[in-house]
């Protein structure tokens, strides 16, 4: 069975050894859900930069493999029971298989990329995976720390979340052997901002804000983790009172803790305002990207422009 992210053949059972028990079942489960957003981002670049179709498929497969590998490991680390509405791999199969399946995806990425022949792409991908793992490690070290500050979380998210977005923006140019420093510096900043906005929007879901998909609330807090929104809202709470956060069980409790519904709404406004600046910064960098693009590539700008609305405000395209 071939799994398709819309428009993509991401996973073909021929990619993996058939003799390994349960491996293909595990991947069937894993790849059959998800929006494939990162793969779609690659498609946007591929279309506008006229990327070679083989390169396009390789890049899309690479990012989806890495992303899904991180999900396999994440779910085990967090002991999550559900992923995309289904039982998580470590529960359905075994924790050992979940770890190995994640490792195998990463190994496959390296095999496929090294076959492509662009050493800088291999190097950059390896760096990205390293950053992703560092971010995971650091995030895990912050569980139970209710006094962590937003700027510290930003550093973790820049490694854990933004590294994948940065890769999506930079890898297509690297695949075309376009290595201009200013271009990549601009893309790096754009990727950081997209990652930050995506993470912050995701963190808002935990407090039932713009939660159109009806995801469970307070999951982060109950797991002992202060996300970016909670860190922002509680920044003026005296440090000695922050330990009380571990006793909070409901959203109403949290709103009362920060000072009531009105204060909560006011803090949300301020959080959105702070992120408006990040959105403005993203569009500023996007404008600067223009000078690095050929005339036939300029449509990339209009394709990348709505991403902030999609990722932060969760507006449908």
């Amino acid at each position: 069975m071939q799994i398709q992210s819309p428009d993509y053949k991401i996973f073909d059972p021929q990619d993996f050894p058939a003799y390994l028990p349960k491996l293909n079942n595990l991947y069937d489960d894993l790849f059959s859900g998800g929006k494939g957003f990162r793969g779609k981002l690659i498609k946007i670049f591929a279309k506008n930069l006229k990327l070679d179709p083989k390169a396009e498929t390789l890049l899309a497969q690479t990012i989806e493999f890495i992303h899904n590998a991180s999900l396999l490991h994440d779910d085990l680390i967090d002991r999550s029971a559900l992923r995309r509405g289904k039982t998580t791999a470590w529960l359905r199969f075994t924790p050992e298989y979940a770890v190995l399946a994640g490792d195998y995806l990463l190994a496959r990425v390296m095999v496929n990329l090294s076959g492509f022949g662009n050493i800088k792409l291999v190097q950059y991908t390896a760096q990205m995976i390293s950053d992703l793992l560092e971010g995971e490690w650091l995030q895990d070290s912050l569980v139970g720390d209710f006094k962590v500050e937003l700027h510290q979380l930003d550093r973790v998210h820049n490694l854990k979340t933004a590294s994948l977005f940065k890769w999506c923006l930079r890898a297509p140019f690297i695949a075309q052997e376009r290595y201009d420093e200013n271009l990549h510096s601009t893309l790096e900043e754009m990727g950081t901002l997209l990652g930050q906005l995506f993470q912050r929007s995701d963190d808002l879901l935990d407090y039932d804000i713009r939660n159109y998909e009806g995801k469970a609330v307070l999951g982060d807090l109950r797991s002992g983790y202060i996300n970016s929104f909670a860190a922002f809202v509680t920044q003026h709470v005296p440090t000695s009172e922050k330990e009380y956060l571990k006793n909070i069980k409901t959203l109403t409790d949290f709103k009362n803790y920060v000072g009531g519904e009105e204060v909560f709404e006011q803090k949300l406004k301020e959080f959105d305002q702070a992120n408006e600046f990040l959105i403005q910064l993203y569009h500023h960098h996007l404008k600067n990207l223009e000078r690095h693009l050929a005339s036939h590539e300029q449509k990339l700008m209009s394709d990348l422009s709505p991403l902030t609305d999609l990722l932060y405000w969760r507006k449908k395209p």
Partner: protein
Amino acid sequence: MKIELLTLDKKDDRFLGYLLGTFSKEFRAIPVQSLNVHQKTNQVTFKILKKEDIVPPFLGMHWIQILKIRNLIMVAFPVFLTIINLLSARQPIEWIYGTLASLGAFSLLIAVNLHNDYLDHLSGLDRLHPDSRSRVIQKGWVTASQMKNWSFFYGFLGGLLGLPSLIQFPQVGFVILAVVVIGLVGLTSYKMGLRYRRWSELSVFFLLGPVLSSGLHFSFGGLSLNAEFWKAIIFGTYSGLLSLFYLNIKNYEQIMVNDQARFVNTVSYLGFERSKWFLAFFWVILVLGLLVFYLMGAELWSFLSALVISSFFTYKFLKKLFRLQSPIGSQIAECCFTAKLGSLTLMIIWSLDLLLKLFQFRIVT
């Protein structure tokens, strides 16, 4: 509210003007922070703000932050020790020369701090490193150009204030020579602020330690190579170690960003776990050093008080240190705060004991 943004390449003619803040009298250009520490970049994005919209703190309180007044304790403590040392030995004190030299030392420390912040800003380090940035430039209170000018002013003032001591006591010249050599090697070897390189640790130890205390000893009229001179060196060594401990604690607090930016200092070299042992050992040396000073002439109750207070901080600090799970987050900040408070407490209790001894000595005699 939309903020005006501008990205400039470092090769752009306008770049230096924006970076230094000399491009306009009505506007300030504040570099936007980047989280990408290890990404090489030739461009900087600025926020352009109207100067009239930037409101500095009331009554010029921002100057306390600009001049880093609280760091001056690193000079104040050796000054205090020098005076006590000479008073205890009943040596005549040259108050005017000593005071001028002390003010000169304060000025030089301010000059070095301002220059460090200026270099950090010029190199772009303040955009990447949350602790390094001279927050005063980030807030738009001063421009980098003003900071550079102030550093030259305080440097010149420091030299001027030290001149009478140099003329009166030529042996101060050796101290000044040591300062110049250490300062030139440290500041000119690298294009960024001093405290991020290994050389900075040695510089801090010597400049705020035995070099400073020997210079102050001579300036206050102390004689060369007598018992009080060697005591001054010992006191200076201890205060140098305190300053070095403080620097290492700050480096530990920023270990993650320092490591990502490839700064090599003792703590980044040792890493997160092994640095715990290094800092614990360092702290124990400081405490034992203090207790040895006490053993050499303190009353029993004074020694026991110091023992109890230092044991309390040792317990608190080491407990927090060895329970640390993350190089980021609130725990490391709390641990480092305990260490800084502990080292300040060591200074205070020793100072109080010395004052008490001097007071008792004066009453008896």
